[in-house]
């Protein structure tokens, strides 16, 4: 367990809420990590500072008693309101609306699988892995004449606009070598949380702390919904990873060395058990485009 993980679990551990294996791992880590012991000390100092009684205001009890006794006044309110014909009609129509509203609310189905952000994240990861296994993930790279590269990743013909995708480019004269990585390893994120109204999953990568990525979620299942956009048009040299000899057997690809002088698009996939990374390597000339279909055979 790394420091980030331990530090994120300390509040729970101090409340006795950590799972037994987590608590054990935390103890083990703390025995060897001075930085995390400082975190623990900070937590304890907060508890010490805040776990103290405060003096109650003298008038609080009397105020509370007066409010508790207030229901005696409500009879007068009802008489005032319902004695008035207009107010009576308004009160009746308002209460009817309230009943209808409550009825409508009970008919709206609750989410079938209310889940935590981590569970939703795993569904996103699982959906992408399944798509890769079926050969539905397509990566397109478009290079302009100045060497700027635009990349698009799509699943089943639909472009993913909300998933954190990292692109690194090297230029060798007129040739570009692009490394496109979709990294869905949970450990790579410092933030995994639901967005507003639980309609999106918000992700912040540890190595890109200033970027907030959002994945749209199905409100019922809190799994990723179909990422929606215009379908892409395939151009250039579509490459099937398997036919290029870079098929993976569910583990790290025994890839071929990429020669910068080789202008043919190529791709490799890394999909180890401990990480969920789809890593596509593209080579193309300035002013051209190329696509690769990512597939992992198991």
């Amino acid at each position, binding site marked *: 367990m790394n420091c980030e993980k331990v*530090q*994120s679990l*300390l*509040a*729970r551990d101090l*409340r006795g*809420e950590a799972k037994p294996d987590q608590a054990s791992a935390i103890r083990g880590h703390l025995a060897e990590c001075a930085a995390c012991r*400082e*975190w623990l000390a*900070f*937590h304890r100092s*907060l*508890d*010490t*500072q*805040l*776990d*103290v*009684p*405060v003096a*109650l*205001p003298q*008038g*609080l*009890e009397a*105020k*509370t*008693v007066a*409010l*508790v006794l*207030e*229901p005696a006044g409500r009879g007068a309110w009802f008489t005032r309101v319902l004695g008035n014909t207009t107010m009576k009609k308004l009160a009746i129509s308002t209460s009817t609306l309230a009943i209808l509203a409550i009825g409508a609310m009970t008919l709206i189905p609750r989410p079938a699988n*209310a*889940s*935590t*952000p*981590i569970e939703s994240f795993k569904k996103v990861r699982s959906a992408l892995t399944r798509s890769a296994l079926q050969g539905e993930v397509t990566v397109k790279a478009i290079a302009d004449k100045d060497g*700027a*590269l*635009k*990349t*698009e*990743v799509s699943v089943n013909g639909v472009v993913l*606009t*909300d*998933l*954190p*995708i990292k*692109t690194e*480019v090297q230029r060798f004269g007129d040739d570009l070598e692009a490394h496109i990585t979709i990294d869905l390893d949970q450990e790579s994120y410092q*933030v*995994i*949380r*639901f967005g507003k109204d639980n309609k999106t999953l918000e992700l912040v990568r540890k190595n890109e*702390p*200033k*970027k*907030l*990525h*959002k994945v749209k979620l199905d409100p019922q299942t809190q799994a990723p919904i179909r990422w929606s956009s215009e379908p892409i048009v395939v151009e250039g040299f579509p490459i099937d990873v398997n036919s290029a000899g870079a098929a993976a057997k569910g583990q790290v690809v025994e890839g071929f060395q990429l020669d910068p002088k080789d202008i043919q698009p190529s791709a490799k996939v890394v999909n180890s058990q401990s990480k969920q990374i789809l890593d596509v390597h593209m080579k193309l000339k300035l002013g051209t485009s190329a696509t690769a279909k990512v597939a992992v055979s198991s």
Partner: protein
Amino acid sequence: MHHDQRHIEFDLFYAENAMPAYRFALRLSGNSEDAEDITAQALAKAYRRWSQYQSRSAPQTWLFAIILNEWKMHCRKQSPKETSLDSIHSLASTMKFEDLGLAEAIQSLPQPMKEAFLLVKGEGLTHAEAAKAVGVPVGTMYFRVHTAVRKLRSALGGEETREILEEVICNHEL
């Protein structure tokens, strides 16, 4: 004070719940007058429904949920009475050793994180209880409390905190 059974029950209820309720309200509002109003309203509402809360686990969870609700209604009705410096002093006065730096840091937390922090670290609720009181998933509460502690540590000179400065749509272009 009357001495019939009902008021004996109220006395017991008040003795057990008034202090944590007021402390939470004071730390939320940073103002003793507002905290007194909010606490009285919340205690009165909670007392009327106490028999139904008592049958559930952690009845205090519901008291804190009512306090949060009263605080939000209070904010909608009127603007805060005191300056932020007074709020900091009020919050610091609820600590074992008055620490204006810590009080300011807590006061500066984003509201959802401040609520989460005060419920779990200040009032000793479990994350699950605090999540129920606030009405969010427990995972959200884990995140809020941890982020709050991280921000406090950073503010007090512990370590750098990475801040999310803006939301961006994932851009594939370099």
